[in-house]
């Protein structure tokens, strides 16, 4: 029994370290995006405390950028609604994660706070199972880099022109591509889901904002409900 507990603790600690290692790459990308966010918030006259506390508490690039840009253009209610809707995918992702969480509702809800896009992909062990220690591990460097990037952006306030010239806009899609390539190697169904997801997002971008397009892309996972994996071929029984 003692050995089992010890081995489980080691496994969990190893998964946490694994997650932190795998989260370092997306973390670097998050730092660049955080820097851009800090610079944009500074340019918008948000001061220093509000953007920094927002990054510490929310750690959500999509929602934070949405609020920053829409608040300047419209009413506070519309801006908050847009920022909330853009993160509606986390509701779907938290349902997906729930079977792999431990404890009662509240404890599970606390564990689910570690959800970030890249961590969701890093923590996926296949067949709909997630390693929560790995999810948390991957989120630690991303959170630190997001907050650090925001702080540096607020202090240094690099121009959007400089960030563009240095190719900073490549960082995020390139890291998502790296994670996608790993996922695609897991099954043919994953390839089908990725192609359908990309198609849905591409189509929806013409008629709605990127947050809704992303939420729509998750519908491609329904391929799993209609397209069943072929069972392994049975060898004919030997007769001689």
């Amino acid at each position, binding site marked *: 029994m003692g050995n089992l507990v010890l081995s489980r603790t080691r496994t969990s600690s190893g998964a946490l370290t694994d997650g932190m290692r795998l989260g370092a790459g997306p973390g670097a990308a998050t730092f660049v995006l955080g820097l851009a966010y800090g610079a944009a918030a500074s340019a918008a006259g948000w001061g220093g405390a509000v953007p920094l506390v927002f990054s510490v508490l929310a750690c959500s690039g999509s929602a934070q950028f949405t609020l920053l840009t829409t608040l300047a253009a419209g009413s506070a209610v519309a801006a908050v609604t847009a920022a*909330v809707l853009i993160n509606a995918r986390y509701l779907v992702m938290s349902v997906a994660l729930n*079977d792999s969480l431990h404890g009662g509702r509240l404890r599970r809800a606390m564990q689910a*706070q570690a959800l970030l896009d890249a961590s969701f992909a890093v923590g996926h062990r296949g067949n709909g199972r997630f390693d929560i220690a790995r999810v948390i591990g991957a989120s630690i460097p991303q959170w630190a880099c997001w907050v650090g990037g925001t702080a540096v952006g607020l202090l240094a306030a690099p121009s959007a022109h400089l960030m563009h010239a240095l190719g900073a806009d490549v960082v995020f899609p*390139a890291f998502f591509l790296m994670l996608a390539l790993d996922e695609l190697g897991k099954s043919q169904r994953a390839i089908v889901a990725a*192609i359908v997801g990309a198609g849905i997002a591409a189509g929806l971008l013409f008629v709605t904002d990127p947050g809704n397009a992303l939420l729509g892309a998750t519908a491609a996972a329904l391929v*799993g409900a209609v397209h069943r994996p072929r069972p392994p071929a049975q060898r004919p029984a030997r007769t001689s």
Partner: protein
Amino acid sequence: MLWLPVLAVTAANWAMKAGGPLVLGQRRLPPRAVNVISLMAPALLAGLIVINLGGTSWSDVNWQQVLGVGAAGLARTLRAPMLLAVGCGIAVTALLRHLLT
């Protein structure tokens, strides 16, 4: 004035991440739902790549960025480590922009 929307978005973000566990608790999902969930990551990642490259109404498409991301993907396919592959993509885009200005 800024604090109120910031805290509202933060609270909504927490609530959405807690939504699944709070509603489902320890109930298990049926196998068909698990099949769907196992494909959420590739579908989401593909969508993230598309929206990052396209932006609102496809207004942000930039061919230097697309080539940089492609170069990163090619480097990864050739078994380059993740950070090196992304660095390769950044270098391609930065070089193209430098040459064109």
